[in-house]
């Protein structure tokens, strides 16, 4: 059988439209406007990438679904059960390894999964050797939107998005600050004519002067420091560009509406962070930022590697539990399930925004992963990799594939990056270098 996600979707939509009439459009039009992949104007909806990372891994034996296959042939595992509402949008790949030396617990895996490469031992200590996968995508597909990428996370601890060595893009932890950044001053709803503020041009000229200062100083620095100022200059130019785009009409997207302003603070309750609530609120904001085409690449760093976050009802911090809890680690298991509940909320935020005859979730690919598999051992084998959304029909959904072993996680990264529109000859280095995607999940 030739499985093509697009065909299946088209067929499904036809059946649903014809039989249940749950969608308020005639079947013929559904078939014609084939995969819900078009703007109101008829152009294709942009393909977006989401990266979802959590800290301290999973428990592979309770994570891996019992059966492989597509559609009803497989069922979610106990750790993935919270994603039941989105099973039809999921691709689960198990049994892949990061084929790099595991020299730094929580470090080798984070760098290995997000760059495909080994940690760089540079003059300023260990760091990422090259941009993380979200930034690789942002460089390729993020140029036309207001924000090249957005990084956030309820307990992100800075997050893991790097533009290059030492070039961290710190993740926003405050829902209110994220709202202000995305939808505060300067955001214009579709159809509204921007009211041009004379301050914008003045701010641009200030940034221009700052950019000149940056270029002048850069000429006086050593090579490594020149790179640091290049990154600063890059941010200055990006903000200038953003200010100039304010004067243009916003993207004309029917799904784009102004989200509700979040509370200014989400204080800890009973000593525990409001992790799930903050994640839900921020995920709704970024889903709307996608619908408003303010950005095409977002990263959600829910929790950080080695975090000792107190999850609901957990008797100890997460990292401590992964190491100190004996047996089959029921408390760690409960935390992984809670993380998946949070991921489910993130997916719901996308699925709840109708776009064309699909949803925002149909037009993106979320890649969910961690910096280790089994936290107790800091393993890099049988790595957690989840994909949600088909990237406008380029990735298969509702499928569990298990590798026979010895294959690199890089295949999946390459599939996802190519699916969202990044042209890449290869991903990774040494044994972890691949030139092919993971065919089993590609359409």
């Amino acid at each position, binding site marked *: 059988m030739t499985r093509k996600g697009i065909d299946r979707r088209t067929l499904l939509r036809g059946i649903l439209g014809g039989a249940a009439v749950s969608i308020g459009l005639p079947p013929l039009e559904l078939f014609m406007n084939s995969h819900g992949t078009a703007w109101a104007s008829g152009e294709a909806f942009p393909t977006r990438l989401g990266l979802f990372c959590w800290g301290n891994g999973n428990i592979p034996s309770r994570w891996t679904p019992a059966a492989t296959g597509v559609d009803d042939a497989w069922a979610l595992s106990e750790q993935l059960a919270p994603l039941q509402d989105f099973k039809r949008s999921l691709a689960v790949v198990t049994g892949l390894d990061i084929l790099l030396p595991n020299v730094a*617990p929580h470090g080798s895996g984070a760098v290995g999964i997000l760059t495909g490469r080994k940690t760089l031992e*540079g003059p300023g200590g260990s760091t990422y050797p090259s941009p993380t996968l979200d930034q690789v995508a942002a460089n390729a597909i993020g140029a036309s939107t207001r924000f090249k990428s957005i990084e956030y996370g309820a307990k992100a601890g800075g997050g893991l998005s790097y533009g*290059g060595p030492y070039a961290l893009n710190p993740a926003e932890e405050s829902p209110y600050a994220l709202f202000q950044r995305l939808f505060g001053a300067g955001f214009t709803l579709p159809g509204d004519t921007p009211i041009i503020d004379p301050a914008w041009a*003045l701010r641009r000229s200030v940034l221009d*002067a700052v950019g000149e200062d940056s270029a002048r100083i850069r000429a006086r620095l050593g090579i490594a420091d020149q790179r640091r100022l290049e990154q600063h200059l890059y*941010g200055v130019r990006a903000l200038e560009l953003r200010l100039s785009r304010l004067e243009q009409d916003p993207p004309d997207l029917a799904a784009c509406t102004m989200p509700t302003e979040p509370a200014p603070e989400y204080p800890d309750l009973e000593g525990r962070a409001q992790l799930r609530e903050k994640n839900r609120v921020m995920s709704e904001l970024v889903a709307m930022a996608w619908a408003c085409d303010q950005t095409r690449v977002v990263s959600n760093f829910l929790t950080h590697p080695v975090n*000792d976050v107190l999850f609901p009802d957990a008797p*100890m911090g997460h990292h401590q539990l992964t190491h100190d809890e004996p047996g089959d680690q029921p408390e760690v298991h409960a935390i992984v399930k809670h993380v998946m509940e949070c991921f489910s909320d993130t997916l719901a935020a996308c699925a709840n925004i109708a776009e064309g005859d699909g949803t925002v979730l149909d037009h993106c690919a979320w890649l969910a992963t961690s910096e280790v598999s089994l936290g107790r051992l800091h393993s890099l084998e049988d790595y957690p990799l989840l994909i949600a959304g088909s990237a406008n029909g380029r990735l298969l959904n509702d499928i569990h594939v298990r590798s026979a072993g010895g294959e690199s996680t890089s295949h999946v990264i390459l599939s996802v990056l190519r699916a969202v529109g990044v042209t890449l000859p290869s991903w990774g280095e040494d044994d972890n270098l691949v030139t092919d995607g993971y065919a089993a999940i590609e359409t």
Partner: protein
Amino acid sequence: MRASTAGLLGMLALACQTPGKDGQDGPGPQPTWAASWDAASPVFRRLTVTEYENAVQDLLGVEVVTAVEPDVVVNGMRSLGAGSSSISQRGVEQYEAAAFNAASSALADPELHASLVPCAPQATVDDACAAQFVEQFGRLAWRRPLEQAEVDRLTGIVHDAATVLGTFDDGVEYGIAAMLQSPNFLFRVEQGEVGTDGVRRYTSWEMATRLSFLLWDSVPDEALLDAAAADELTTDAGLSAAVERMLADPRARRYADDGGAADTHGGLAAFFDDAYLLYGLESLSKDPLVYEAMSATLGPAAHEQTLRDLEYWVFDTDNDFRDLFTTRITHLNRELASVYDVPAPARTGFARTELPEDGIRRGLLGQVSFLALLAHPTTTSPTRRGKYIREHILCEVIPAPPAGVNTSIPEPSGEAPTLRDRVAQHLQDPYCAGCHKLMDPVGLGYENFDGIGRWRAIENNTTIDASGDLDGNSFHDAWDLGKLIAEESHTPKCVVKQLFMYALGRQPTDADDEALDYLNETFAWSGYRVRHVLNELVMSPAFREVNELDMTVDDTDADTDGGTP
């Protein structure tokens, strides 16, 4: 030059010569700098968050109320991260917002306005007055006189903004915002100049910046810049006078002695925050159901206690640094006094007090700050406490744990009621023991203090055994262990190394061995007084000389962000 440095050190020695510890054989002659010394290439540092906040406070008289680019920890220290991190896209946005916010609040205050704008504008657009403002503010913010081209460009920004927005002050606001977003403000360019003797030294302007961020955690004031303008900061006498004045200035410390108002300034407090990770206490996470004494204010209070003690030790008593690990003198408020189960020394705020003589809680490592920070949210952690002592108090290196090792420990049981029994696994398994024997036995010495630092004698109905040994010297309890740490030769050397890294913004290399030896010797000679070693560090070539730019690329593999915005 070497000779003149030595001469001055001799003079200082007369002024501050004291008997050695416990008045033993006397201090002997003060060590002099004779290190074979090869200065390293310049370090290009970004302002840390507190440096930025203090600088804006000093420049504009207003507080920074929005977030800016967070600090990055490299090799355990933020001051090292400042030398390798950059500014992200979000950071550029944040610095822009913070600069405009601060500028407009300052200009709205008539008194602050008067100090910022040194002339009365004759019209909405007044380039002469604008240029005066730019020169005055620019010198303070960029820590050097502005070049004419820079003055012209910034005056042009003031001119344009005033023209478009309609008031002279609008123009000034944009001028301030431009200077505060510039890398001339946000980064420190310190590259030195080759003198007639062929040695490359930091210029007086660069020394002003180096001194002010080291001693005040902020920008130089007018007086320091005047000393730079007179080129006094490259001379021993000028430098020494500047250091003396700056250490006596309120900006040198965060807390006035005995309960006065807190400042955010203070180079010493910022240093210990960085070296000892004390900033983590501002976001302490503990389960309040497990620890009833936990509150949102406990972490910040413990932070303040430790910093007050450190500042008191260095500024008020100038005592032996090592005694910080055994002293009963501390500063407490009511909340901390209740956790320590001692009478509160004051009804409100902090006051100095002495912990009971019959208790075993002594010294810095008997404080809530260390005990709570290096524990888990619901339990203690001998491993984390021990690792911290090895790495941050003794400056030893603990290798990362190997991957693929089962790290679980057994649950409490009849055979293993206490954590000591349960972590014994770490020490029995030879694979784990290599490193854990360095950490756990030391950390177990603090098991009489729970996860927020409260005293406890019993765990799971079993009397806690807090005895152990530190590198072959046995101890009975935490007090005993504090004495061993105070006597351990690595302890004073560690704080010297940390100070070196903090002041220079880089890790020492083999080329710095002799410089560190000298600093360690002079620290010992002084009876381990931090002020003395701080002064000697600043006066030494280590703080004043620099090499040429490093134009080599040792990470040729690296691939930077190649996209276009």
